[in-house]
């Protein structure tokens, strides 16, 4: 039962949700919305597993005095502080202007935004390293990227031509590439789903 029941549930739930797509009847619409809520609710409860995993890893680092354990204390402190601030005033804790939101705006946001902005540097270093005309494929990659990037630079009379070329690349070969990838992804993803629903692929569920 421990092994069969989950496989059975996946099958029933999966087939049911596929069928639901073709039936516009209001009760099926209702099932769809209800089922989406299931996923959300189960996902929320899983948060505790995540927090536990994070806490356990950090605490064990501190306990064993592993190198850099002091930093793990900061993680634990940040986590505990956020949880405390987020709950101690009930549902008013997350309103604008609370300490909870202060931490969000002045600690979390700047770090997040700066991490994101590192991409400007990385995109340059990746381009420098990889865009060398070593092979045909690399050359194609290099030339198209250059044409598209030059779009932004005022080139005087050439601007118009480059602009046209760039938009041709975007609308013709780029479009073709995307569509082909999408079709392939659609088939691959559908096949993967089918394998899950029919229980052909089941290792993710464990089996003892």
């Amino acid at each position, binding site marked *: 039962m421990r092994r069969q029941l989950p496989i059975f549930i996946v099958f029933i739930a999966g087939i049911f949700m596929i069928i639901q797509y073709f039936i516009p009847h209001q009760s099926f619409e209702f099932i769809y919305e209800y089922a989406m809520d299931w996923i959300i609710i189960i996902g929320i409860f899983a948060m505790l*597993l995540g927090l536990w995993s994070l806490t356990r890893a950090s605490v064990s680092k501190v306990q064993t005095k592993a190198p850099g354990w002091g930093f793990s204390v900061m993680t634990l402190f940040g986590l505990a502080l956020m949880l405390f601030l987020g709950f101690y005033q009930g549902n008013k804790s997350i309103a604008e202007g609370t300490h909870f939101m202060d931490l969000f705006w002045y600690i979390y946001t700047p770090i997040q935004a700066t991490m994101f902005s590192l991409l400007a540097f990385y995109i340059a270093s990746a381009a420098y390293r990889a865009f060398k005309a070593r092979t045909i494929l690399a050359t194609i990659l290099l030339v198209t990227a250059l044409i598209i990037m030059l779009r932004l630079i005022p080139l005087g009379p050439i601007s118009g031509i480059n602009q046209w070329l760039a938009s041709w690349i975007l609308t013709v070969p780029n479009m073709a590439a995307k569509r082909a990838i999408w079709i392939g992804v659609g088939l691959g993803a559908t096949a993967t789903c089918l394998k899950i629903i029919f229980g052909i692929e089941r290792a*993710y569920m464990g*089996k003892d």
Partner: protein
Amino acid sequence: MELVGTEQCSVPTDKKMKRHLLCKICVLIFLLIFLFAIDSFAQGTETQSTSWFNKDRLNVLLFLVLFFAFVLFFINQAKKGKSLFVRKIPGLDAVEEAVGRATEMGKPILYISGIEDMDNIQTVASMIILGNVAKMVATYDIPLLVPICRPFVVPVAEESVRQGYMSAGRPDAYKKDNIRYISDEQFAYTAGVNGIMLRERPAANLMFGSFYAESLVMAETGFSTGAIQVAGTANIHQLPFFVVACDYTLIGEELFAASAYLSREPKLLGSLKGSDLAKLVIIIILVIGVILETFGVTRFTKWFFVQ
């Protein structure tokens, strides 16, 4: 159950039968409650339709039935022992190479499964690949680090890795602590992963799943540590960055083909064959559609239009 493993049957058969019956009854009761709930509570929905079939979606249904048939047919063929050819996919051969190199160097392997939850099929595919990688890694005593972005992925990753180790006959080598939740937030997660790359110095970074802007941050940091990097995603907007910054990249569908390729299990290879046949059908339909469209017949194209 067809997968290789160390399955034990300790429960006597008649007891098992009873359990089966019990479970079926449970499901039945559950479904009854479910249907009852639908009947009495379906009033609050946005649409108030009472029709039982959406004709606009007939095309999807037909395609789906065809695709089901293809996949199941080839899986059956494979079960019968027909050998199936699969072309080389360099990105997937590189996974084995990467594991080999990490073993030689005695360094860990880092497996990143993207930043989306289990309801994204790429994450599902990634978990399946993770199981296969775990199986490869298990025989050598090197750690497999799996930092995770979504809490719900944690239990699934744990089961996949454990299953992989068990299939390789090394359940003792499985370490739960190596599968760590980091943060739901994209860039907090990225910061954490960067930390792992720099401090634990994995010899191989495997990135399979649904990635967004963090792809390049991770790939560049990984490059700077000198790790061999194999990536795969179906998110088109991130593919250019993986192609540029990683040693090997699985493009789109190749990600979904990975589990069949790595495990070489006939049944999974059968599904690959099925999806190839579907592609052939698509190509034929496309050519027909283009010809008809060229001669001004638009009904065929219109029939494929889905709302």
